């Protein structure tokens, strides 16, 4: 991947795309009728939520690959994705209330998207805590992969269960669905935003992966050194 898509190019592309997205958010998209300027938070809230979800899907796939093939790069990818995904998920939870309060008068509600995001955030926290609290590094990959798989099963169940729960306990309709009656310019802005965040996500994951590769190099050299010293 590094040969096909060098980091520098990735960085430039990310920056450019973000600039375009920001332009569209502030200067191209029309002002929303009922909420006013505050609605522009939507253009980072939704893409961040999308990326956070994709992140966990990647963790799931990487975990399965690790359990089946013991591939260390898969484990490193899972860990890197977990960190970056967690950052994006936090952004969703930060922007959500900041949008909800001026728009609908409440800081929080258990709407499907916010509930799912909160549960997803808890899963990210659990995964990252496990990574940092593990005493035996040899087992870390195994255990985290197991949590990655169970966690993703939970995400699927979350999605279905929340929908069922909302039919039992209908809430006042706050948002007529994310895409209901969306001005085409708003939709275009949103899509560009999703693209920008996605490319940013993968850029950050690659940066984080560099750290993992360095750490692997470090432990390999240490091993070789210890072996060599024991020979002398």
């Amino acid at each position, binding site marked *: 991947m590094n040969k096909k898509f060098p980091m520098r190019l990735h960085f430039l592309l990310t920056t450019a795309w973000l600039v375009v997205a920001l332009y569209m958010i502030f200067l191209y998209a029309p002002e929303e009728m009922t909420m006013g300027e505050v609605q522009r938070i939507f253009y980072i809230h939704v893409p961040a939520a999308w990326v956070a979800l994709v992140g966990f899907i990647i963790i799931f796939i990487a975990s399965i690959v690790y359990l089946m093939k013991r591939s260390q790069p898969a484990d490193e990818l899972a860990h890197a994705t977990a960190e970056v995904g967690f950052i994006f998920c936090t952004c969703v939870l930060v922007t959500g209330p900041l949008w909800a309060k001026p728009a609908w008068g409440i800081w929080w509600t258990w709407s499907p998207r916010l509930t799912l995001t909160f549960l997803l955030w808890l899963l990210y926290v*659990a995964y990252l805590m496990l990574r940092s609290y593990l005493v035996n590094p040899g087992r870390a990959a195994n255990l985290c992969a197991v949590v990655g798989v169970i966690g993703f099963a939970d995400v699927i169940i979350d999605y279905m269960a929340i929908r069922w729960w909302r039919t039992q306990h209908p809430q006042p309709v706050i948002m007529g669905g994310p895409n209901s009656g969306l001005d085409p310019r708003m939709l275009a802005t949103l899509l560009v935003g999703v693209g920008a965040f996605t490319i940013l996500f993968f850029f950050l994951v690659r940066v984080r992966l560099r750290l993992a590769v360095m750490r692997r190099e470090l432990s390999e050299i240490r091993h070789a050194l210890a072996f060599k010293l024991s020979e002398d």
Partner: protein
Amino acid sequence: MNSLKIIWSIVMKDLRVEWRNRETLASMCVFGLLIIFLFNFAFETAHEETLRLLPAVLWVAIAFAGVLGFNRAFASERENACMEGMTLAPVDPSMIFVGKMVANLLFLGIAEVVMAFAAALWFNFSFLPALGQLILIAFFGTLGYAALGTIFGAIAANTRMREVMLTVLQFPIAFWILIFSIDATGNAMRGNPDGNWLGGVGRVGGISLVFTVTSFLLFEYVLEE
């Protein structure tokens, strides 16, 4: 060795160890009782509205008592290097999982009976009319919850802050088992006003089975080096 024999021997081992000082069971029961007592005292018990809280209070108490039990289930194994012993034994790890899970299920089940008695007493509510349904819901809910508690207990036993790690893993993932159980229990207690009691039990059963099977399949990875 026959799989059932293995499971049986693990369950009997845990029961025998527990019987010696009954620490785990006692603390689970006491902890659960305290939670129910707290909620019951904080809200006026004679009111109809308070009964709405009963399913949630019960399952919250079960949830916390359960986590207490799951922590101890693997703590003693860890201390006496039994984990390594189990890993080395020529036994299918999944059978170890089933054994530990059944033991956890039994202990939590006994604690639940104690808690149910106390709740019925303090909330002035009889569980008898819907007893069969409630037992089904309690069984399936506890099954899924114990399955997750068993695998997460084994995972958390490898970490520095075991109790915290188990809790952090358990609650987000067992969340819907608890919510569906609370919902079904409430429905049963109210005499199934929608007439659809099978749906509630089915939901709890379905989600519990999903998590039980997943935990069962993944447990071998938790034990291997």
